[in-house]
């Protein structure tokens, strides 16, 4: 980058350096701005989509305004089916599995990366293999397992499934961070006479908050939008989650796209909110000053 300024005098170098800085900053902002607009368009599209009727959904350009906004799509989504109940179920299932996954993954990752035992690599490997199984291979075995233990048609079946399937991924993401934690952290804690549990919950977990928030966001999005397991393991309407709201508008031969759009918008709002809150937790990580215990 600085190769052709080698011959310039030091004063000039500083000057052009500044100039270059501001120009490159400007270009950077323009690019960032364009990307930001492109990334926000899908949201606007989805909103417009939810206000169109089936003809307009296909005929109008994606970002065209509907001629007669179909607010009725929202009314139908609200009144038909138990959106309120589904929403409650989604929150319970997603919330429980996210907490369970992140907690279990943190415990295991801590034990594997920070504690000394011979089999740690092997156990890590066992978890990693869990990433590799295709979802559709598991449906039939899991169905028969859950029905044999009587968990069929119970929230626990999907909560446990989400937890098990997201554990390996969550651990993978946590791993890189745990490895970078300085040893001094534990040493200081042990010196202070901290028990290992206390060390984990009071020092390690708070320090890894940014990555915990990251994995929580990822888990939350996956669980919130998942429907294959829900459909397979849950049969009572009263236990289903928001994703069945979408199915409600898929017919045998035709689909009510506007209503699906409205359902998607409604089900996205809470997760958008949760995302914005959680994403504030991904801030500057630890500095050496925080290693006090």
């Amino acid at each position, binding site marked *: 980058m600085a190769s052709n300024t080698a011959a310039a005098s030091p004063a000039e170098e500083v000057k052009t350096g500044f100039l270059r800085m501001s120009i490159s900053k400007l270009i950077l*902002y323009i690019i960032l701005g364009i*990307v*930001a607009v492109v*990334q*926000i368009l*899908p949201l606007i*599209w*989805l909103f417009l989509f939810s206000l169109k009727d089936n003809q307009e959904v296909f005929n109008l*350009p*994606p970002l065209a305004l509907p001629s007669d906004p179909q607010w009725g799509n929202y009314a139908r989504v609200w009144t038909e089916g138990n959106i309120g109940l589904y929403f409650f179920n989604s929150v319970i299932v997603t919330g429980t599995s996210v907490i369970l996954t992140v907690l*279990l993954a943190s*415990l*295991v990752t801590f*034990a594997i990366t920070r*504690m*000394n*035992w011979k089999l740690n*690599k092997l156990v*890590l490997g*066992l978890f990693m*293999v*869990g*990433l*590799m*199984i*295709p*979802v*559709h*291979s*598991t449906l039939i*075995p899991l169905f028969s397992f859950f029905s044999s233990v009587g968990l069929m048609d119970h929230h626990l079946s999907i909560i*446990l499934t989400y937890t*098990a*399937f997201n*554990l*390996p*991924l969550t651990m*993978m*993401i946590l*791993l*890189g*961070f745990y490895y*970078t934690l300085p040893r001094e952290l*534990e040493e200081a804690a*042990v010196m202070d006479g901290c028990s*290992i549990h206390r060390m984990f919950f009071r020092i390690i977990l708070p320090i890894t908050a*940014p*990555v915990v928030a*990251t994995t929580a966001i990822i888990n939350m*999005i996956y669980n919130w*939008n998942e429907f294959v397991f829900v459909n397979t393991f849950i049969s009572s309407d009263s236990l289903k989650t928001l994703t069945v709201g*979408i199915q409600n508008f898929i017919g045998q031969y035709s689909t009510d796209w506007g209503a699906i759009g409205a359902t*998607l918008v409604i089900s996205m709002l809470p997760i*958008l909110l949760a*995302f914005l809150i959680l*994403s504030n937790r*991904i*801030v*500057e*990580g630890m500095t050496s000053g925080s290693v006090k215990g």
Partner: protein
Amino acid sequence: MNQIMSDKRVIALYTLPALLLISVLIYVPLVLTGYYGLMDWDGIGSMTFIGLENYAALITDGMFWSSAYHSLLLALFSVGSLVLYLAVSVVLAGNIKGADLFRKIFLIPMLLSSVAIAQLWMRIYHPTNGVMNRFLASIGIENPPLWLSDTSIVLFAIFIPIIWQYAGFYIIIYYAALKNIPKELVEAARIDGASPLQIAYKIKLPLISGVIKVTIVLAVIGSLKYFDLIYVMTDGGPNGASEVMASYMYKLAFRTNDFGYGSAVGFFLLVLILIVTYLIRKATTSKDDSIQY
């Protein structure tokens, strides 16, 4: 210190619950998938043991190999796109004004469910009304590509939304990793006169190399078992031109009542992922590397 960090009871307490969960919910289906792969079974009635016949059939199954090739291509593309995500994350995690807002906006599409993403991109790729072809027509291109029906481009056309779909996932991980770098290190380098690019390249990247390796593995595994958008947008077609291993497995198991053969494909997929992961590990881990995954 060492004594506390080697406490077997604590290790067991931290790892066993999660281990139990994945052994039941992941390893049992995994073993069963291998078992079904040895059977002639329609997934409905009774099964017959046929040994390795399914695997023998795999070897001569052209559709299987082309779907495996497509999956590997997707893995290659996904890994390549990581560079882009990393660059975006470095910029976002840098000290620029408004980075926080940009970051949130950039991640928003990741909240969309696959249903929405598929609908969006089908509007973009529509042969006559689509955003893409309307744009191409407006700049005077007469016979714009038929994105999803031309067998020579459909695969690449479908890769783009897949890669876009996962942008947020990787950016959020990189961002968290970059934020985790102690400020003092970056400050020190800046005082020494390093340019932002040098800081990024010489200091930040090496520090998050563990995370980068993890994301490479995740991208490869995720791509090899990828299913969602392909299933919705092209259904693997036209005539298998965009078929990938997971979608092929799904078709065999759930559409053509060949659950045994489908399981063999699933099991093969698993073995392939294991091998590829092992190779990546070999390629990226140097001897003195403390980071294992």
